[in-house]
């Protein structure tokens, strides 16, 4: 254990840390988390992997399962519906999350000061995050209807034509993204606000008195200091957005056509509509592989823990 510990390269606190490291091992700290995650997350993943090698009709009892090796995977790659859902899912992530970040950051910067009612605003801002996803989906579906939907009433009132949001592929896709942004940007806001609150105000005030304008302060001080928090927000949002299901399901059921059939919705359809658990497990494993590649190449290179430390705690 000791031999495998890397030499710390940080200038500050290194000596003490190393001494401290000598007095303890990370295992007791990591073990409980590992136990829970192994029991309830990794076992099902391995199980899914095994299932993905079988032609496994969910409902047909034990006798009709047969080993097909990688057959499910090759079926998957030939399935245009699968690629469609993957593309929609990626589009969803790349459109929704940057917007959520921008909104969240903007609001965090704005509200990072004391004023009357500030606390209430910050708390109320979070309400959409607490909103039950199914109900949120339903409420949006309702608001987007022609004639009695609130959003269309608004459009009509300001002289624009009614839009049948959920009836056209493009607008329906926009609608589910809108719903997600509406519901989740306050989440980003809260994380960034907590991070921002950690930046000493003297630092900012000093810069302000020095005559640094806002953009200079933002890019030179705030963003670098906020980097670890932004990164976390980004990662947490991505893993949640990858799993989005119930709100989209009640809003559009994946329609019109396949226009909003995101990855999870397609998995659901394959598993519980077509009853092909083997195939849906193959989809899960495929996603897992993508995630691992993503984590190893992109995330690890640009956002490793060491870098986090340099940016965040090192100065």
């Amino acid at each position, binding site marked *: 254990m000791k031999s495998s510990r890397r030499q710390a390269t940080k200038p500050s606190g290194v000596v003490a840390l190393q001494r401290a490291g000598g007095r303890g091992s990370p295992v007791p700290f990591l073990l*409980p988390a590992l136990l829970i995650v192994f029991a309830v997350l990794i076992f099902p993943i391995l199980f899914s992997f095994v299932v993905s090698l079988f032609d496994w009709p969910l409902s047909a009892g034990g006798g009709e399962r047969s080993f097909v090796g990688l057959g499910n995977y090759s079926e998957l790659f030939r399935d245009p519906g699968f690629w469609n859902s993957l593309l929609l899912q990626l589009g969803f992530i790349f459109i929704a999350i940057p917007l959520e970040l921008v909104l969240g950051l903007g609001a965090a910067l704005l509200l990072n000061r004391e004023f009357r009612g500030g606390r209430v605003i910050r708390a109320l801002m*979070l309400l959409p995050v607490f*909103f039950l996803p199914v109900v949120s989906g339903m409420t949006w579906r309702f608001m987007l209807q022609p004639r009695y939907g609130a959003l269309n009433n608004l459009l009509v009132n300001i002289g624009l034509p009614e839009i049948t949001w959920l009836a056209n592929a493009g607008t329906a896709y926009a609608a589910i993204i809108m719903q997600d942004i509406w519901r989740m940007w306050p989440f980003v806001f809260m994380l960034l606000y907590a991070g921002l609150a950690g930046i000493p105000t003297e630092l900012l005030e000093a810069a302000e008195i020095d005559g640094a304008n806002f953009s200079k302060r933002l890019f030179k001080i705030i963003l670098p200091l906020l980097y670890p928090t932004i990164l976390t927000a980004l990662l947490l949002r991505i893993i949640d957005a990858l799993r989005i299901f119930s709100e989209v399901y009640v809003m559009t059921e994946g329609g019109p056509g396949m226009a909003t059939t995101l990855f999870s919705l397609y998995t*659901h359809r394959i598993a519980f509509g077509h009853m092909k658990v083997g195939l849906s497990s193959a989809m899960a494993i495929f996603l897992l592989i993508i995630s691992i590649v993503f984590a190893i190449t992109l995330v690890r290179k640009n956002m490793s823990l060491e870098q986090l430390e340099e940016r965040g705690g090192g100065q």
Partner: protein
Amino acid sequence: MILTLSRRKKIITAAIAVFAFAILALELYPIFITLLNGFRRDIVILSGQDFNLKQLTLRSYEMVMANKGFIKALFNSMLVALLSTGVSVGVGSMAAYGISRFRFRGRNALAYSFLVFRMLPQMSLVVALYLMFRGIGIRDTIFGITLAHSSFNVPYVIWMLIPFFVAVDKAYEEAAMVDGCNRWMIFRLVFLPLAAPGLVVAAVFAFINSWNEFLYALILTGVNARTAPIAISSMIGGDTLTWGQMCAASTVMLTPVFIFTLAMQKFLIRGVSAGGVKG
């Protein structure tokens, strides 16, 4: 010079407050609709009538409150969310500390594998979980669903806490070390208090994740441990929708989380103003 600066600041702050309230109004509009519709009859909601005071009625709330299944589910939800939050914040903060303050081989790999495993849609894990839970006899129990919720909350909490832990100044540890603290004491006495805002944020979101979770609850619970999202979704129904009751029930569900956050926010501010954490 300084006077004008502070005056300018005041004006800016006032403008920002107004702006913030405007954004807030826009943002909360859908929730406002839900709140309002909980007090209106279904037909009024569906026909898109303009608001007037005569529409208000408590009937939906009466029906929701008389629905024993929903009340029981609400209680279950509360229990599961609290338990799972406790477990995942406890376990997750330990792991986050282990990851951010020890250097060992595979540290990055470990950290990111927590993340990667959480990326999988629950859809693909739930069948396996169901078989496993049935095998060991914890299907449809509070314990089982708490465990299931912890499985996705633990990685979440770990990743939420890492930046907070990383940001804790190492000088504090050195000082503690000099005073003869061991790792556990440092964790308890130095890290937990210093990263309090992070812990609060993590707790809030772990709570929400569990409170709103749908698919695991659907498959892994039955009559006994059913949680509120499942009970509400039956009000949405496949065929006929009881809008009023759905809105009333979701308002009922929204209230405790909101109170929870308000209470936590106070704590959050205190944690931040206590200083110690720097960017």
